[in-house]
């Protein structure tokens, strides 16, 4: 048996886990971003890190600057009158220009076959949905976004690729993402974006943040190249 939500759970010497929800839902995110802001304001310099993710917020604080029980007391206070962040839905969605093509998205055809549809329909179904960033993780700037139309949802590759090129747009189950850097990966690749997802010289570093709304906008190869995209095929980069 577990207590009702929200719940504050032990997460080590310097952390508390706030469990706000029990299931993944886009509507969770304005609550989580609101809680992030309130923690920043309340903890000040004692705050070390905040990790919002789908249904939870991990609050990491400096135990020398604030006793764990004091940190918990503040969190109870913050939760008591928490309201969802309205600004979350006011800003325009982020747009990621995406070149959908089998050379940079070798699983486009697999998804089409699985869903008994054309490649064009896969592209349409991926690009017509507005996604929400649920969490960042796996690599700097890697955003887990949902929800993908279930007709193009697809399990992870049985054998992950050793090298997924930077900018690869991908699907696994009902989530989508774009790889900020070349890395190993097991997601289904359907296209590539020239957008710079992570930049150490940019303020805020990551293009996407938890709670953001995101659209993938189909572009031609010419437009993709004009925007600085790398057209080398996935096969060539293995």
């Amino acid at each position, binding site marked *: 048996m577990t207590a009702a939500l929200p719940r504050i759970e032990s997460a080590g010497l310097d952390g508390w*886990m706030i469990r706000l929800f029990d299931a993944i839902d886009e509507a969770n995110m304005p609550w989580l971003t609101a809680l992030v802001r309130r923690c920043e304001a309340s903890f000040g310099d004692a705050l070390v890190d905040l990790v919002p993710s789908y249904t939870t917020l991990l609050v990491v604080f400096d135990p020398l600057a604030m006793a764990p029980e004091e940190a918990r007391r503040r969190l109870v206070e913050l939760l008591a009158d928490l309201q969802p962040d309205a600004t979350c839905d006011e800003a325009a969605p982020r747009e990621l220009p995406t070149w959908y093509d089998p050379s940079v998205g070798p699983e486009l055809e697999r998804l089409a076959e699985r869903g008994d549809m054309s490649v064009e329909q896969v592209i349409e179904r991926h690009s017509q949905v507005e996604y929400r960033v649920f969490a960042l993780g796996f690599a700097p700037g890697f955003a887990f976004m949902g929800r993908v139309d279930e007709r193009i949802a697809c399990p992870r590759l049985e054998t992950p690729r050793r090298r997924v090129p930077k900018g690869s747009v991908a699907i696994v189950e009902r989530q989508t993402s774009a790889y900020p850097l070349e890395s190993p990966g097991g997601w289904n690749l359907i296209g590539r974006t020239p957008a710079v997802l992570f930049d150490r010289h940019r303020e805020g*570093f990551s293009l996407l943040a938890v709670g953001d709304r995101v659209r993938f906008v189909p572009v031609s190869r010419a437009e993709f190249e004009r925007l600085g995209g790398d057209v080398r095929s996935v096969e060539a980069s293995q």
Partner: protein
Amino acid sequence: MSDRKTCLEVRRAGPLALLQDAGRFGVRRLGVTQGGPADLHAWAWANHLVGNAWGTTALEVTMGGLELECTADTIIAVCGADLGVALDGNPLPLWESVRIRPGQQLAFAQPVNGLRAYLAIAGGFAAEPVLGSTACVPREGLGGLDGFGHKLEAGDRLEAEASSAVPDAGARAPLDERPDYAEPPRLALLPGAQIAEFDGRSLYRAFNTAWRVDDRADRMGVRLRGPELRCRLGGMVSEGIGLGAVQVPPDGQPIALLNDRQTIGGYPRLGALTPLACARLAQCLPGQEVYLMVTAPERAHRQYRRFRAGFR
């Protein structure tokens, strides 16, 4: 910069030598890991003995194999694992500040006791912070000498920041601060929210088993081998993972997550090792026995405060 000087040149790099400050903080929500010294205790002592403040960049040497030529007259200290380190062929005392002179050769051999040694230099190693930290994380391409997450390579030149007050050689850490890493450690764990989801037999086993460190052990995490732990929860929705979290994937073999862990994950957890327990685990070689021991938050907190109080 004019107030920096080259102090060491890398002749041979060995398997893994990484510059580490205290870690990269404030950016974990972007998927950026913590980094920092796997053994916080030895790293802190090395810096302390050469007069450096908490957080100064030092060098983490894993396994050994690193050979350096000294190019400056300055003070260093090596703490942590005994990797058979020698200065001009003579054993270098550990846990003690030592003067080095241009032309001398500092060489780390291989593990004698423990796995990771920390080399600190008066003033600290110079490196440009990236996302607020010099912590070197090769997987993310962040930190280190050039800022792009490269481990040390032969030919690298290490510079030291100017130090206003280089201390004398001969400062020593007290004997009770120098662990015998060959002893099976008792690792203090703070129970986590899912602990009640493990069955009773598994919980008994978790805290009464001589776990063995698996060879899948690195700065991301250390896998432990032993009896299978069963949890009623399968996968969970991914959530933030703190330092030392002990997660149990479906194969029932726990993994203690360390400095370079991924920032979120979805396996149930027994709880979290304390920072000092993480430090101690980071010195264990594959095959070594370790025990998990439940501790109370107040006790862990007190112990951590006492540890930090010794360093400025």
